[in-house]
């Protein structure tokens, strides 16, 4: 899922004719002050991070003057929101709020159609409202083939209690425009929370959360998004962006790679050893990962190269995985499947030979390869033929090895390697 920053989302809302507060993005206190001077009124400063609960985490401040704006911006730019350093702030006019509403459009998988969600209590945690007062939230299904007509939106709003008649037309129009945005940009979610009703009676989108469907990213180059795995509340790393390119437009198997501990800080804090990791099959990945963590290792990345990927995918994936600085080992485990493992092996071997040209592909870190499944014997033979198995720091396992065996073998190899080589230089 590719999530847009608030300022990007607001840009799209504005393009679709939905009012958003006047403002601009700032990367420094001075810039923030400049925006406040231009606006000439009280402002809201909002950190631009992808995580939710930003307000509760102290990521939204208000300022009355440009000088105060500069000070608040300085404070915000020195903070981290849920571990993510703040790099940019959206400085925008502070709205004179009369009322706050909630409006969202998402896909309901059980209905297999878009659903409009509306609540008269905006600006608060909608999940909490759904839990405590579910009847305050109303939903409307949309027939994706017909789309949403403006009169249908107005009709939906008309049925709600305490919506005044003069609000029906503007609200209906916003709902229709939001739905058009949802469809135009292949969204998974568009959420405006809160949709502010100002004292002058204007409807303004005070926040915007827009999630684009990963599989549709290629249709929207104008958004500048990357086809990466789900990275949650942080932007994708360069490794993840490089890995995301492997599967882009190539559906011959998959290479799912995500960094669990991009800078190795978690491993350091918990006294674990950072290693590189790749498995065939997510179940095998998770099981092996559990075994490794118990033994004192923490994979810097999660990887699943399955669905019978081409050898070229494995080549690229292996190069990317082994380029993570600070790793002290590499473990590859395949699940028992019909994947053509000789091709998998060829991809890994080509990558190893390129990364370690002087040793003919023998890695300088402990590496365990477990081949189980289709063409596993051929895969093991290829490692032997190319001389990689001869390395004292390489262990090849076959179909009799379970995930735990692979992890234990890796542990034994790592200890021996560490003792004999002293590990990698600083």
């Amino acid at each position, binding site marked *: 899922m590719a999530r847009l920053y608030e300022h990007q989302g607001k840009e799209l809302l504005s393009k679709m004719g939905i009012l958003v507060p006047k403002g601009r993005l700032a990367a420094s206190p001075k810039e923030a002050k400049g925006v406040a001077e231009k606006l000439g009124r009280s402002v809201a400063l909002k950190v631009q991070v992808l995580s939710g609960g930003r307000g509760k985490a102290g990521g939204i401040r208000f300022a009355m003057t440009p000088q105060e704006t500069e000070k608040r911006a300085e404070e915000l730019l020195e903070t981290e929101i849920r571990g993510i350093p703040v790099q940019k702030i959206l400085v925008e006019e502070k709205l004179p709020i009369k009322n706050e509403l909630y409006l969202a459009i998402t896909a309901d998988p059980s209905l297999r159609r878009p659903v409009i969600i509306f609540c008269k209590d905006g600006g608060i945690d909608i999940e909490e409202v759904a839990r405590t007062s579910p009847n305050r939230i109303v939903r409307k299904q949309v027939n994706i083939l017909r789309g949403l007509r403006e009169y249908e939106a107005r009709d939906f709003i008309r049925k709600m209690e305490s919506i005044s008649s003069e609000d029906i037309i503007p609200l209906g129009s916003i709902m229709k425009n939001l739905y058009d945005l949802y469809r135009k940009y292949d969204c998974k979610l568009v959420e405006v929370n809160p949709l502010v009703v100002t004292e002058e009676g204007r409807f303004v989108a005070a926040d915007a959360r827009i999630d684009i469907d990963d599989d549709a990213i290629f249709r929207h180059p104008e958004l500048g998004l990357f086809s990466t795995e789900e990275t949650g509340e942080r932007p994708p790393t360069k490794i993840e962006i490089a890995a995301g390119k492997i599967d882009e437009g190539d559906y011959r198997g998959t290479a799912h790679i995500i960094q669990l501990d991009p800078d190795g800080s978690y491993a350091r804090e918990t006294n674990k050893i950072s290693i590189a990791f790749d498995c065939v099959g997510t179940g095998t990945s998770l099981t092996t990962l559990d075994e490794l963590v118990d033994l004192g290792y923490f994979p810097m990345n999660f990887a699943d190269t399955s669905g019978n990927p081409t050898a070229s995918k494995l080549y690229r994936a292996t190069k990317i995985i082994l380029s993570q600085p600070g790793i002290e080992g590499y473990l590859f485990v395949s699940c028992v499947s019909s994947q053509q493992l000789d091709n998998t092996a*060829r991809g890994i071997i*080509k990558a190893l030979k390129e990364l370690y040209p002087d040793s003919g592909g023998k890695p300088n870190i402990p590496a365990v390869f477990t081949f189980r499944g289709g063409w596993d014997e051929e895969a093991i033979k290829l490692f032997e033929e190319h001389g990689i198995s001869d390395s004292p720091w390489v262990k090849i396992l076959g179909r009799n090895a379970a995930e735990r065996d692979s992890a234990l073998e890796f542990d034994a190899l790592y200890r021996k390697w560490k003792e004999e080589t002293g590990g990698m230089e600083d």
Partner: protein
Amino acid sequence: MEGRDRRYGRLTIKEEVLEFEVFSGGKVSIDLSKCEECHSKACVQICSLPTMGRVLELKDGKPSLKKDLKEIKKGGCTECLGCELECELKGKKAVQIILPTPELDEYLNELKNKGIKPVYVMAWRK
């Protein structure tokens, strides 16, 4: 022969080099001048196996393309890398496959500028 099919790929036989593009964005290059002395023809052998792409065939004692460029570029070559690795083991090291990774290169350049080395270029302590 050059620029046979601009849209779907390019076949170049220049100074006895056979080159063709593959679906994922890359190039297979075979130095045919080395193939005369090769007795194994390992590239053609592996490519002809039922589970492989069957792109190469032997013509006048040298590897040649069995499929048209359009088909190869669209995925006819299954990118098993078998031709390169088999030629390296049993042939004359005539096959070279280049599979670009520009985003990774960019990342590695960034690391270099920061003075950070990937592990594969580092030495052991002892």
